[in-house]
């Protein structure tokens, strides 16, 4: 029963002011899209956002690096929010993630479409991979060059999920606020 409760625990994200540019070189920013944990609380593949965030943060923290979460309201493009997250990060490294689960690791001096690591097939990213993504982001933040997290490839992900992903995205567009600045998010689990 205790285990069931643990799995069902809820992620609570609370706005804590406009996100500022970080000064600590040992931090990684996790940039989340506007509907993350709000429009839906799980990825397309049914991985709960609470567990996604917990695993990524654990991956970052086990390397002795701090995680910050910033929500972007004015743009849903993963390359853009990932890069802007990286620019807000004191280390210059950011992770970007959309509601549907598509994830990347970005670095402040790159262009939106050229990232450090990209996991384009959202339905294939499991919790172990989310943790590994957090760990690698932390290693980049420390100036190391880790082996990239193995990219999963399932040719049947698109047939199953792409149209659904587009529907989710269109719905998430309804949450966009083009005038709102990125906000620092406080994380708690209930």
């Amino acid at each position, binding site marked *: 029963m205790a285990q069931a409760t643990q799995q069902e625990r809820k992620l609570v994200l609370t706005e804590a002011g406009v996100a500022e540019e970080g000064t600590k070189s040992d931090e990684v920013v996790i940039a989340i899209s506007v509907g993350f944990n709000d429009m839906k609380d799980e990825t397309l593949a049914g991985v709960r956002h609470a567990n996604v965030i917990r695993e990524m943060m654990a991956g970052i923290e086990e390397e002795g690096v701090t995680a910050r979460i910033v929500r972007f309201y004015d*743009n*849903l*493009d993963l390359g*853009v929010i990932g890069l802007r997250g990286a620019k807000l990060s004191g280390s210059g490294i950011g992770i970007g993630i959309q509601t549907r689960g598509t994830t990347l690791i970005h670095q402040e001096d790159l*262009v*939106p*479409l*050229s*990232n*450090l*690591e*990209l996991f*384009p*097939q959202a339905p294939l990213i499991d919790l172990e991979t989310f943790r590994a993504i957090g760990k690698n982001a932390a290693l980049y933040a420390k100036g190391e*060059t*880790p*082996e*990239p997290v193995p*990219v999963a*490839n*399932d*040719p*049947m*992900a*698109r*047939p*199953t*999920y*792409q*149209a*659904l*992903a*587009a*529907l989710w*995205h*269109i719905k*998430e*567009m309804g949450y966009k606020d083009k005038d709102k600045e990125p906000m620092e998010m406080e994380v708690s689990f209930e």
Partner: protein
Amino acid sequence: MSDDDKHIADGGGEVEETSPKRSKRFEALDKREVTKDGFVNEWPEVGFVAMESPNDPDPSVTVEDGEITHMDGKDRDEFDFIDRFIADYAINVDKAEEAMEIDSVQFARDLVDINVPREEIVELSTAMTPAKLVDVVNHLDTAEIIMAMKKMRTRQTPGNQCHVTSVEDNVAQIAADAAEAALRGFYEAENTVGVARMAPLTALAQQIGAQCGRGGVITQCAVEEATELELGMRGMTGYAETVSVYGTEDVFKDGDDTPWSKAFLASGYASRGLKMRYTSGAGSELNMGQAEGKSMFYLETRCVLVTKGCGVQGLQNGGISCIAIPTSVPAGVKEVAAENLVTMMADLEVASGNDQTFTHSDKRRTARMMPQFLAGTDFIFSGYSAVPNYDNMFAGSTFDSYDFDEYNVMQRDLQVEGGTKPVDEETVLEYRERAVKALQVVFEELGFPPITDEEVEAAIYADGSKDMPERSTADDIQAAEEMMDEGITGADVVAILAKNGFKGIAENMLGILKSRVAGDYIQTSSIFQGDGEFDVLSAVNDPNEYQGPGTGHRLTGEDWEEKKKIRFAVDPEDI
């Protein structure tokens, strides 16, 4: 059924969950592969509709003093930047009013009328607005689209493009697979990567592999646009395709782009004598949630005309990476064929999709490619996965290496040129060996992480990356960075190959580099014939002259004899 017939639980145990009794037929149908596909009902308000959205504009045009001042229901001051670009650069203004006055049904009939030659159609179709082109093609059914494509594609000889990728970005495997793909008859090979920073090395591996066969197979590496251009300029690739254009302003802006910035990028390729085409395809605007309620077909037609306006010679479309969006709604497969046709009507080369998975069903994926296959296009697949789909880093193609024999048989069955040919195992192994040994030498000379003899052996006989030994991606990335920092070019690679006894590959690779100076292969729909002579076939010297039976491209003579020789046919003389 009366109440008496109901099963009443006795209350002694848990309440029985009674689900309605299922038809065994439906239970069996529920297990079919097609039920795993994503299907969506139309939602026209946001543009979730393949063709004929109620929000698509009606065709109209006004020309004043040689300038389009009104188009498709909007005055010039209401144009978004795509309208403006199309009105100013894509439409033949001199003929616009004449073309727009033609009855759309009549023009649709002309498209399928073998007595109306292609040139006559193109003269008018290149003077039509997006809404007019859509209005015309909406009158065609799928069989008529096939007929129209047969006449309208620019180059007479159909061709094919393939993907050569590895989920591990394994360079030895990529070189060997590129060599095999060249032998199998593809005119173009396309690579992309799992890890972006690997691109310089995988591009190099593919280039060496592709040149070890018949000479003149051109290669590209689909990555971020600036990197892609640089790899081309360095001579690591021979053409480019992944320069994307979109049908709404918002999607363009999200990519920090405009039609003008895309035109600027295109000129970067043209100035270096590099072949390039754009990429678009139904569903991309919807994928970004920015389709403005317009049909996928209307938005894609705008993409075709942006391409035309940029002066680019060709376009890859037919759904492409968003293919599972159009195919989720009614008439989606028809729509992707229709967008190929509009590209041809704009007098552009078309690489016609069939390049990304959209279904679990073998029947659906085969039906989807029939229009392009039967009509013939410049590149029927863009591309066909020359590796197993588990290694296909475009997330899988509609046909892959496991379909090689079936695809050859289909060409033999229907006497259709599909752009691949039967090959024998011995020759394939020979090609693969030469490719990977050449790559081994190049890596050694450049001081890159060695390709071991064990890797060479594995790559020769491999089916996919699962058959390859482990290799450090981190070390390869370092080498890739070195390669870019040190300014290593295609010419350096040619010199290394020549010095180390790989004269044939060196000559072919040099041939590609020299062709960029000659520039013939940047004409519309160009391919090298692949005989090592670097003779170009294009819309200029091989124009499509199809006008019904007895004309156009026919699969006859030597090419047909070659198609007949599938591996497992029994020779009557042997019995």
